[in-house]
């Protein structure tokens, strides 16, 4: 009897201490940083990505967390202020001790935080399509490189189905991404037999709102008798007035198709798309993709955000892939230590939302499918063309002579982001 009681008390005590231990473990969480602008010009795009990370963290915690610990998202607001990005990144890494950061949208913000991540040897997942010409040991690029978006899109425009374009207008916002992309495109087009006189290049400031002259110029350029298409790297707020002007001036997609690299479902949400049907966008994901993974993702997103009307877009998929890849790499490495996780990242495979598999390559870029979608009158895209398999992201473009000879490979024997020959 006495012994029985003792055993009972002992068991109770053990259970108690086990509970206390798990409580202590729960307090010790894994922290992930979220570095997206929640105010200022870029808030329009970046707020959605912050919500996406929060949703993924929430989902992970519901399914038991990571390495037996709960994951905690630390959200900061760099306020669309590029130098502030660097300060906030330092704060996340040094003060909050985050294991990884998901963040940045514009290339200039990424360039601003790059030295911080390299100095403190931390890890950034960058989820937006960009101009390439970069590979940092501390950044994983889950958006598209130019060869995963711009080049296939131009190929499509010049193909018979795309309309057989012979003259190309390159419209862009005046900063590093459009300028570099258009430099690559011009060199590529020249190689395809389109001379400089058949290429028109035009840049506008951020937030440009009066597109009358430029749209009229495009019309005049297109009246020369050769089939003309527009490649748009216009970013952010300027897109809405641009598309409104296109619609009002009656530019139909079958006459002058516009293919955009920075216009997704979210950007179209502010426009009546009926007059824009047939204009194009090139991405690695569209909300209209029919796959089980995508349907589940959209449902989860609507439930999390509490609004059935909210759309999903490509950078959200890139965030999803990046987050899941990091999660898998951490599980594989058994730790959140940056160097161990980085090694585990190479070759990591995650199911993407379009029914395929995303693979992380040793140049820190993903293998992704390329899709071209047509704007529909409900603000969604109808996929008209896609690559057969996935395309490996190319950090250094093959179409610029100075970068064609560079290689990015962070595994032995290269261990370098921009070298002409291996380090070892």
């Amino acid at each position, binding site marked *: 009897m006495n012994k029985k009681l003792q055993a009972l008390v002992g068991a109770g005590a053990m259970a108690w201490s086990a509970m206390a231990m798990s409580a202590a473990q729960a307090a010790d969480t894994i922290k992930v940083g979220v570095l997206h602008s929640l105010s200022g010009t870029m808030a*329009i795009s970046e707020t959605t990505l912050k919500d996406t990370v929060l949703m993924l963290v929430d989902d992970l915690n519901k399914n038991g967390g990571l390495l037996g610990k709960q994951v905690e998202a630390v959200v900061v607001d760099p306020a669309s202020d590029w130098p502030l990005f660097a300060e906030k990144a330092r704060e996340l890494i040094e003060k909050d001790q985050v294991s990884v950061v998901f963040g940045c949208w514009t290339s200039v913000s990424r360039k601003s935080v790059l030295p911080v991540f390299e100095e403190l040897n931390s890890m950034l997942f960058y989820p937006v399509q960009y101009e390439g010409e970069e590979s940092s040991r501390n950044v994983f690029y889950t958006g598209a490189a130019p060869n995963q978006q711009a080049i296939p899109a131009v190929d499509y425009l010049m193909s018979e189905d*795309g309309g057989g374009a012979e003259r190309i207008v390159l419209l862009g916002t005046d900063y590093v991404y459009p300028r570099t992309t258009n430099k690559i495109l011009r060199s590529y087009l020249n190689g395809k037999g389109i001379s400089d006189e058949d290429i028109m290049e035009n840049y506008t400031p951020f937030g440009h709102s*009066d597109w*009358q*002259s430029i749209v*009229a110029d495009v019309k005049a350029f297109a009246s020369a008798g050769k089939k003309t298409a527009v490649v748009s790297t216009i970013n952010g707020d300027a897109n809405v007035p641009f598309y409104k002007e296109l619609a009002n001036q009656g530019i139909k997609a*079958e006459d002058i198709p516009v293919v955009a690299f920075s216009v997704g479902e*979210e950007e179209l949400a*502010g426009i009546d798309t009926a007059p824009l049907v047939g204009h194009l966008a090139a991405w690695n994901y569209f909300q209209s993709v029919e796959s089980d993974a995508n349907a589940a993702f959209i449902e989860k997103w609507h439930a999390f955000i509490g609004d059935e009307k909210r759309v999903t877009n490509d950078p959200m998929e890139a965030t999803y892939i990046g987050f899941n890849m990091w999660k898998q790499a951490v599980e594989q490495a058994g730790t959140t230590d940056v160097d161990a996780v980085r090694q585990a990242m190479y070759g990591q495979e995650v199911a993407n939302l379009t029914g395929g598999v995303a693979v992380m390559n040793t140049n820190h870029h993903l293998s992704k499918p390329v899709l071209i979608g047509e704007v529909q*009158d409900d603000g969604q895209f109808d996929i008209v063309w896609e690559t057969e398999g996935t395309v490996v992201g190319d950090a250094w473009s093959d179409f610029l002579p100075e970068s064609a000879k560079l290689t990015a490979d962070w595994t032995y024997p290269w261990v370098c982001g921009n070298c002409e020959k291996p380090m070892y």
Partner: protein
Amino acid sequence: MRNDIFSVLRRSPFFASKARCAAVQMIAVLACLMAFVTVAPNMAQAFSDEELRNIAEQLNDKSATTKVAVIEQMAADGDPRVAPILKAMLDGDLYVRDSDEHVVIATKKGKVYTHIDIVSGEESGESSSKELSKIKVNNRLRGALRDALATLNLFSPDLAVRTAAVEQIMDARDPAMLPLLLRAIDREEDETLLARMQLAEATMALAAGETTDERLAAILVLASETTPQIRAVLSQFVASAEAEGYQPEVVEAAKDALESVERRLSTWQTVGDVYRGISLGSVLLLAAVGLAITFGVMGVINMAHGEMIMIGAYTTFVVQQALAPFLPSGSAWSLAISVPAAFLVAGAVGVVIERCVIRFLYGRPLETLLATWGVSLVLQQAIRSIFGATNQQVTAPDFMSGAIEFSTGLVLTYNRLWIILFSVIVVAGIAAVLRYTAFGLQMRAVTQNRRMAGSVGIRTGYVDALTFGLGSGIAGIAGVALSQISNVSPNLGQTYIIDSFMVVVFGGVGNLWGTVLGAFSLGIVNKFLEPVAGAVLAKIFVLIALILFIQKRPKGLFALKGRAVEA
């Protein structure tokens, strides 16, 4: 019988491909014509019901090349039932019904799609979108569909449809359409359209013509008109003259014609630049005129002015959402109601800001600047918290969509035209308030001499609040107009704040007419620089020119005479 001729012609080896195609189309059109004039519609149907159903099913083929061939075949057959099918396909209303694999035209009403059978042209049931799969079109198919419809519509009894068909043929410039066009010219009675048809004929005849006389005649017709297409046709002709070995006198005539067309086009280009300048000016004027009152008349450096515009735009959005259940889409009423609503909302916010912040800071411009800048950030973030950071959609009413298109390439979009008109009305309204109302008189009195105004019994504090409210309210009205051309996002105001200050400073602080002149001259200068220097450099040039101008005339275009308020 007709079918027989058809097949003979198709098989005939004597018909070169172009000529055969044209002949087929001619007969197709004849058949089509008969369908319109004949009483019994069955007589004209070249397809049997079964044939039509089968061929329409091929429109759902995977390959775009096959689809194009099917479209051409259908159009060539002259069945009057073809045009509605192709039109529906172009509009994206053509579906395959999953239940019986029939091709149907489906139109959406609410959540239900009403099916129309393509063979009988009658309603054949309804379903949700899940039971239908859309026949996909891409830009290549849209082009083919429009060309096919143009040949079918060239003999339509509706003048507008015929005109659109001729414009499409002019754009396509396919020599195979020439015989068809000639037939249409013979039948056409409307003089304007006839001239367009002859022009379209000339664009094709220039290259397709056989003799020197034919070519010279075509050049003569072309030289009399001014459109970008003609410039393209002529310059292509001149460029290929050597390779094709045209006679020297023809090439000479073509060169002369090209030169005169280019000269006239460049005049039109200038007209276009002026119009776009006025349009930009009217937008600047709308954005700046509220500031002309708060900054110009009261001397308050109001950095939150842009946010008043934004509040006006959001008011438009809210009004439109609230009224959406009661009004048909495209109705102008929600916009009409938004104008007073935006004035009241933005005006009220303005009065609150004036009473709570600005009145303590009169005469301290730097502190006002910082305080109002802070207010602007607060307002932006407040809107972001309420409505979210993403853009909101304000739909344009029907009368503001589309454009007047001149054949010379000049496009006047309706929304811009209305905004020009609207800005004129707003400025006239303000001028009237200042000039003819008691409040306007008090306001001018306080501006000119605050103390004296106070001593004759004007409640200067009250006038200050109302003046600030008026300026803010007008910014709100500007927001209604800007919601039609710009983003409705929390950042809307920042886009316009700097331009607004530029206009007011350039025009001369405290002078309404200076603001008007300043806005239009900045707009026009900007639009003339833009094509030459690019949008970025144009802005920089304008800014530098403005700085130099202010060095020379610190008080702007029109300096206010007399004693300005506390300045």
